[in-house]
């Protein structure tokens, strides 16, 4: 049957090729879209968690905004021990993130002050890799790292001093001079123009909060485990107003963007599948009308009606297989090419206002999604050919043989 189906498909070579091309390029387009989306989302998550958020955070549960936990944990050490004991965690560090004032002899600016444990932060985030001048922070020093834009606005250069002011534990304004030891350039307006980085120890001293932090940020070995790790840690935290949450509860806008993008992809997917389905339906209907007499002959020589149905479905399967194969090859080549050479996307520039986001996306395959698309093409192909197949199966041999 497959031999006959194969030959029947190529009986009208041009029509079949158009159909196969429509299916193939449709599938390739879907694969490309899936890969682009996965790459983009992966990059977005990696940059958001890898630049500032971390995968799991322990912080006060009564903060107004999870992204900026400005309330201090009086004793973060029990939570720290839990993070230490969890083998799924690659690294964790104490942090103080606060809004404050950065002043130079020439200007004063409001900024997000991020005090970190430098040796841990180097593994927790990739900010140290963006240093363009000077060095990263010394844990015991009084250096400050800032973006090129904020340095420009403050009119300070490497080696010059700035004063940091923020509210201390007793309610007074804590102030301390820090020397600029590093200038970074991430390409992000927020990071380069609104954030400064200090050693945690110096910040604790300045605020009169020795040993305190307002967040513990952790990087897990597998980001897919972040949610489970956060849940486990949260359940084991001592009673009080501290909780552990994953990046998904902190960077909620990314989840929103993901949902939006997935929604658009689904709509595109449905449209492409409908085009494929209509193409198959059209081909098989035309093929049916052209071959009514032939089906009559097959029935006359003893083919059962369901055999005719199966023959038409087999022809669709052949079309679907060739189309899917073409789609897989074209899609894989496209993804492979842009995986190696990258794809320049203006969307990178849009994201880079908020994050150090590259404008070149290196595409990665999303095999599970591609497999789903492939299977869908098969299913759609079979479903679309079912009406003509059933119609052919209902033909009466004598009438079919009279068909001109």
């Amino acid at each position, binding site marked *: 049957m497959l031999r006959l189906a194969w030959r029947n498909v190529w009986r009208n070579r041009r029509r079949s090729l158009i159909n196969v091309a429509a299916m193939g390029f449709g599938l390739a387009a879907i694969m490309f879209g899936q890969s682009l989306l996965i790459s983009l989302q992966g990059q977005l998550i990696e940059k958001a968690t890898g630049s500032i958020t971390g995968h799991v955070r322990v912080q006060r549960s009564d903060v107004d905004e999870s992204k900026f936990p400005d309330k201090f944990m009086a004793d973060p050490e029990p939570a720290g021990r839990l993070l230490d004991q969890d083998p799924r965690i690659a690294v964790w560090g104490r942090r103080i993130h606060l809004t404050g004032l950065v002043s130079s002899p020439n200007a004063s600016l409001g900024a997000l002050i991020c005090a970190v444990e430098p040796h841990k932060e180097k593994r927790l985030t990739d900010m140290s890799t963006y240093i363009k001048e000077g060095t990263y922070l010394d844990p015991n020093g009084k250096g400050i790292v800032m973006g090129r834009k904020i340095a420009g606005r403050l009119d300070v250069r490497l080696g010059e001093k700035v004063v940091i002011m923020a509210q201390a534990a007793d309610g007074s304004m804590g102030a301390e001079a820090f020397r600029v030891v590093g200038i970074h350039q991430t390409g992000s307006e927020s990071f380069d123009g609104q954030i400064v980085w200090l050693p945690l120890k110096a910040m604790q001293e300045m605020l009169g909060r020795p040993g305190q932090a307002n967040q513990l940020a952790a990087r897990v070995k597998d980001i897919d485990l972040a949610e489970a790790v956060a849940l486990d840690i949260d359940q084991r935290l001592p009673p009080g107003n501290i909780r552990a949450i994953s990046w998904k509860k902190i960077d909620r806008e990314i989840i929103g963007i993901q949902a939006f993008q997935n929604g658009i992809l689904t709509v595109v997917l449905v449209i492409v599948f409908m085009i494929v389905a209509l193409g198959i339906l059209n081909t098989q209907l035309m093929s049916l009308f052209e071959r009514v007499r032939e089906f009559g002959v097959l029935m006359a*020589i*003893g083919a059962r009606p369901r055999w005719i149905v199966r023959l038409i479905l087999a022809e669709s399967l052949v079309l679907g297989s060739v189309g899917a194969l073409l789609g897989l090859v074209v899609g894989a080549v496209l993804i492979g090419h842009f995986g190696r050479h990258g794809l320049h996307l203006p969307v990178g520039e849009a994201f880079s206002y908020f994050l150090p986001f590259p404008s070149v996306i290196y595409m990665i395959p999303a095999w599970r999604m591609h497999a789903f698309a492939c299977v869908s093409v098969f299913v759609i192909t079979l479903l679309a050919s079912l009406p003509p197949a059933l119609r052919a199966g209902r033909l009466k041999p004598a009438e079919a043989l009279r068909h001109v």
Partner: protein
Amino acid sequence: MSSLVEVKGVHKIYPGGSKVAALRGVDLKIERGEFSALAGPSGSGKSTLLNLIGTLDRPTKGTVSYDGHVVSTLDADPLSDFRLRSLGFVFQAYNLIPVLTAVENVEYPLVLQNADPKERRALAHEALKWVGLTEYAERRPDLLSGGQQQRVAVARAIVTRPSLVLADEPTANLDSKTGAQLLDLMEGLNRDHGITFLFSSHDGAVLERARRVVRLQDGELKADEVRAR
């Protein structure tokens, strides 16, 4: 002993506005080994009767039996199986499957029977040998003449060793010489292999070759002539 085919009180009325009565109470018996023809002008009901005997259509009234068993009331699947094992068809327009070679066309009923691939290929070659087309086995129909295509159709009809081969105007699309050759072939198969043939024609020269001619007119059986040869 029952006849190979028994048509009893068969009527065929085609539905529609005018409700054309193509057959009106036809009774007919076909015995094993016959080489018979249905004769009559266009519209006399030859093809309709052939279709009913071939179980390609169902009578409005009456029955068609093979070996004493009524087949005209069988469901679609058993009817297909019956045709597959017991009947062979030769059509006026050859009706070979254009994408298959001659031997594949001949082999196809055996494919439907799920016969062993080697065995069915051997039987197909044998059938092609019987019709004198061994050297054309691998050609597709479009590379065969009309006469050759009709010989392939005959080979396809006999490959399953059916009880009866039905041929609807088998020579109508052939020139007289090729038509005569085809009749020679069918006659030889009937004589040498005992295959029963029932064919329709309105061509006097063709009817001359039949040993029995059943004449139809306006859907009724008008004459049943048996000739000694």
